[in-house]
């Protein structure tokens, strides 16, 4: 197998992450995914770890306002970026309109995929992809719900989008 890896490999890397409006200067083993950084270092456990392979969407967060899966990027690759997690959507003690809609429409059962669903839905509405139920389903396809709450999730997204006055035909 490979020769011993150089000592440089074990070097921690300094990065600055802006998370939910707060600046964090942190040092990471480069193997740390953004997901693990959020959960284990910043103790923001609202972002969930599902498959770790980009397939389930439970770890969806916003980076510079756009949705990504935090399991498929390294924390060191996000140096200087602005990250929003489910904890940062609304001020303490309040709910974001999409969170309210998920409660009103019972858009979950066990709740594990819900933070990812909500982060994805917030982005989807911003992108302008809530024009029809079919469009919502297509643009929520990166978020799986093993309880099968999809019908109510679509209801919640549609209702939240209507409230925000978002129209169809936005960016992809």
């Amino acid at each position, binding site marked *: 197998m*490979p020769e011993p*890896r*150089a000592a*440089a*490999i*074990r*070097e921690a*890397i300094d990065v600055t992450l802006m998370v939910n409006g707060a600046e964090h200067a942190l040092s990471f*083993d*480069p*193997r740390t*995914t953004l997901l693990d950084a959020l959960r284990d270092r910043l103790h923001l456990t609202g972002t969930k770890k599902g498959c*770790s*392979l*980009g397939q389930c*969407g439970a770890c*969806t967060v916003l980076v510079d306002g*756009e*949705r*990504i*899966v935090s*399991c*498929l*990027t*390294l924390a*060191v*690759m996000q*140096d200087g970026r602005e990250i929003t997690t489910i904890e940062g959507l609304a001020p303490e003690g309040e709910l974001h309109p999409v969170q309210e809609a998920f409660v009103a429409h019972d858009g979950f059962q066990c709740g594990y995929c819900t933070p990812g669903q909500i982060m*994805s839905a917030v*982005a*989807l509405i911003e*992108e302008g*992809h809530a024009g029809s139920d079919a469009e919502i*389903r*297509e*643009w929520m*396809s*990166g978020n799986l719900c093993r309880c099968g709450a999809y019908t109510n999730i679509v209801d919640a997204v549609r209702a939240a989008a209507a409230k925000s006055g978002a129209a169809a035909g936005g*960016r*992809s």
Partner: protein
Amino acid sequence: MTPFAYAPVRDVNAALAQAGQAANGAFIAGGTDLIQLMQERVAEPDTLLFIGNLPLRRIAADHEGLHIGALARLADVADDALVREEAPLVVQALLETASPQVRRMATIGGNLLQRTRCLYFRDATTPCNKRQPGSGCAALGGQNRLNAVLGGSDHCIAAHPSDLATALTALDASVVLEGAGGDRSVPIADFYRLPGDRPDRETVLKPGELITEVKIPTAPAGRRSCFLKVRDRASFEWALASCAVALDLEDGVVAGARVVAGGVATVPWRLEQVERVIVGRAPDRAAAEAAGALAAEGAVGHGHDDFKIPLIRNTVTRALLQVGGVA
């Protein structure tokens, strides 16, 4: 993941210089494929050079056609007004690729270099000639429903997964490669290698070379195109079979044709025998059916993937019907 050194690079020259120094280095941009492979210890680079911030995201058009920077993300390209106008086939393929989240991470260059979804390639506990040359192919006698029925060898039947590469092949696109010795342009049709007895070598990219741009030549005025993808679920899934068609019509007759199959072959698979039947005719139902019937020429099934042989014919026929406006 196996430990590695990490270095962000500032410009293309620095990337090429640093790549020359790393024995087993890898470039990383979006990371959506490489990180999965590293999580599974299928890829174990000793150095990761982060190129995600290099200024290679520009999308522009000139007299030659479209130029898409290799670091433009799939979502950026699918949203771009120039690409929508000049290469709607690419937009169609991209919007059927991955998920909305992954499309905001993955880059055009990275998509073209993604590794196969063959179950055995991604399972480090099984033999795989692509992952570990000489270890054997577990797919040949194993679970091969997702494998390739065209372009395989006794060493590998892994299907090429990229929808984008399939579309770009139908558009005669090229990739610009930069290396320590300068840059070169390679037609996408010559970029991928058949597996033969070296399935670990997937492209003609040399060690340390970087894809910096994708070029798509300007289409003739009468261009009609269509990308059709057949998969196990309606969204966020790889192709069981796909077909990219670009027909150039003159006075209602097909003057030029590119028909390319994806998801069924070890590389994007151009179907020249299909093109020959459709050229010189109106793209009507009879022409589509006659041409599509030839789409599986040379295909070899391995058991679970036998269904792909009729599936290719049907997918190509349906794509031709769609582009001809008769379905």
